[in-house]
């Protein structure tokens, strides 16, 4: 991949690319460095190819989910992420039922639906009953494809449906790991390139479009990236759980800092940390499916962030106090009473 030309004023761009590459380098360093240290058990574990693939692909996927998730939460598009997770399941099983590669269905369905939603969203927001009806039906179709696949000769083992739903990061092959890592790295690079204008467009769309930021194009590109990330993350944590990997680190980061780019990198860092901790726990306790500790750590971070910010809000009457008092004394404030 050639590094894209950074627009003037984009100070984070090239640095971030280096940071990401350095991250993978550091990861390798840690693996080899630990071999003689007290963590030799862990280092031995990392000698096993399946765990190495899981760590490399997982790191890249977590970084992409953290970066993309930050903007998903910022733009209030969490429900879109939920929708894409349903589509990922149906797309993957449709491809399996048709006898083609799972990856084609996964990426094809996610990106196509993400772009379609970007096109629809520009015209007017559908209400949640409409969205809910469509997604329940999409999942129903997924159940149909699951049955077609498991009752056909190809899917005799019947575990593919479960692994699409809940992820099989320990089952990644070498080529899959390389594909996922490359795709996720490309997503990270794209987010870094469009990060500044996308932030502008997300926070104040009107002013951004007035100062010639291509708001609509950015919306399309961004939802396309969400689709690609959803497809990659489906293989790591599964279609049903990828929403947590998008929402939890980003929500944590937003509670901890108000500065946008710091929150963005914090989100990616929390996602990667959750991924590493989750993989190690799952390796230590083989009966636990890896998706559970990954999401448990991410959720725990979110809870911790809540506890910290809560105490801060109680200690000093900050800017949140008026909203709280409004809520509590709603009846008395109401002039009609």
């Amino acid at each position, binding site marked *: 991949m050639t590094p894209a030309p950074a627009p003037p004023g984009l100070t984070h761009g090239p640095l971030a690319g280096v940071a990401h590459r350095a991250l993978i380098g550091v990861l390798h360093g840690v693996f080899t460095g630990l071999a003689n240290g007290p963590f030799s058990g862990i280092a031995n574990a990392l000698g096993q190819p399946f765990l190495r693939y899981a760590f490399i692909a997982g790191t890249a996927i977590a970084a992409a989910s953290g970066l993309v998730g930050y903007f998903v*939460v910022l*733009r*209030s598009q*969490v429900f879109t*992420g*939920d929708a894409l997770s349903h589509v990922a399941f149906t797309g993957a099983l449709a491809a399996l039922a048709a006898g083609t590669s799972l990856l084609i269905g996964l990426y094809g369905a996610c990106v196509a639906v993400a772009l379609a939603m970007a096109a629809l969203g520009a015209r007017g927001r559908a209400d*949640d*009953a*409409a*969205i*809910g*009806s469509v997604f*329940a*039906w999409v*999942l*129903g*179709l997924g*159940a*149909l494809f*699951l*049955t*077609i696949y498991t*009752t056909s000769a190809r899917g005799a083992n*019947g*575990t593919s*449906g*479960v692994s699409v*739903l*809940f992820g099989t990061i320990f089952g990644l092959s070498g080529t899959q790991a390389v594909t996922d890592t490359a795709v996720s790295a490309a997503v990270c690079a794209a987010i870094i390139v469009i990060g500044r204008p996308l932030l502008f467009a997300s926070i104040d769309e009107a002013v951004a479009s007035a100062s010639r930021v291509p708001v609509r194009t950015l919306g399309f590109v961004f939802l396309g990236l969400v689709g690609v990330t959803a497809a990659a993350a489906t293989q790591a944590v*599964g279609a*049903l*759980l*990828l*929403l*947590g*990997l998008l*929402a*939890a680190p*980003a*929500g944590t980061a*937003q*509670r901890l800092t108000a500065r946008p780019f710091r929150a963005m990198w914090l989100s990616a860092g929390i996602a990667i940390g959750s991924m590493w901790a989750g993989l190690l726990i799952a390796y230590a306790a083989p009966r*636990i*499916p890896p*998706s*559970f500790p990954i*999401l*448990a750590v991410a*959720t725990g971070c*979110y809870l911790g962030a*809540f506890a910290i910010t809560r105490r801060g809000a109680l200690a000093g009457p900050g800017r*949140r106090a008026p*909203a*709280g008092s409004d*809520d509590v004394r*709603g*009846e008395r404030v*109401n002039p*009609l*009473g």
Partner: protein
Amino acid sequence: MLAPASGIGLSWNIASDIRELLAYQFMVNAFRAGTIVAVAAGALGWFMVLRRQAFAGHTLAIVSFPGAAGAILLGVSATAGYFTAAIAAALVIAFVPRSLGGRAASSESAVIGTVQAFALACGALFVSLYGGFLNGLTSLLFGTFLGISASQVLTLLVVAAVALAVLAVIARPLFFATVDPDVARVRGVPVRLVSAVFLVLLGAAAAEVSQITGALLVFALLVMPAAAAQQLTARPAVSFVITIGLGLVIVWLGLGAAYFSVYPVGFFITTFGFAAYVLATAGRVAVAAARRRGKLADPVIA
């Protein structure tokens, strides 16, 4: 699987088809359970769509999956797990979001997304700890109509009767509080209490529906009939009756179709529900277009 050689098959004679459907006790139980669930889900789903709490209903339904999986792991009946988890989650949703400071909508949706994903992860953990129970997992997620016992039907009936009775008591204040919460509060309606009670009832309904359609497809019976009916008419009483009627038709057709095919019941129920919603929307759009054309045509003729 479901199509053994013992003469099961769809014929053109509808009466004999229905007789065949009802020849087996498990199918009679399935129809009884489906009817109870359709009525309860229709009634509560109608208020849910009116109150725009579809996301909350979705979350309650998803939470019932780890509840059922955890109950099976502990050796308790799955039915108890469904109800406990969904009602507990309803209480949490009713009382927590206020104290989180519902200012930023974006952070609130991040909370819901995280809770959903974590609940599903817990469900996956319980199923995996229970060990090698893949068919059970599929039916927890996507529903089954096989093996519903008479005692389960009785449980469904009791819970649905209690839920509908409570709904009948709070229906008027709930409707008032939904349509105009500020005026309702001024008139002395306990808006927060009514909302909390409604969420608990919704949790019970979501748990009931989960047992037929599976945790992931609850939307099909909670949302689709109500959304379709509210497309057809704006009058509350009429659309309420249409909702329950549509729910019954969708469930009965879905169970019948699933009996005569190898495909899961969840697929048929979602498909029929979605078809009803699409037809209702298309009908409304067509009527509106015809009316507009009529209005436009008049001045041209004049």
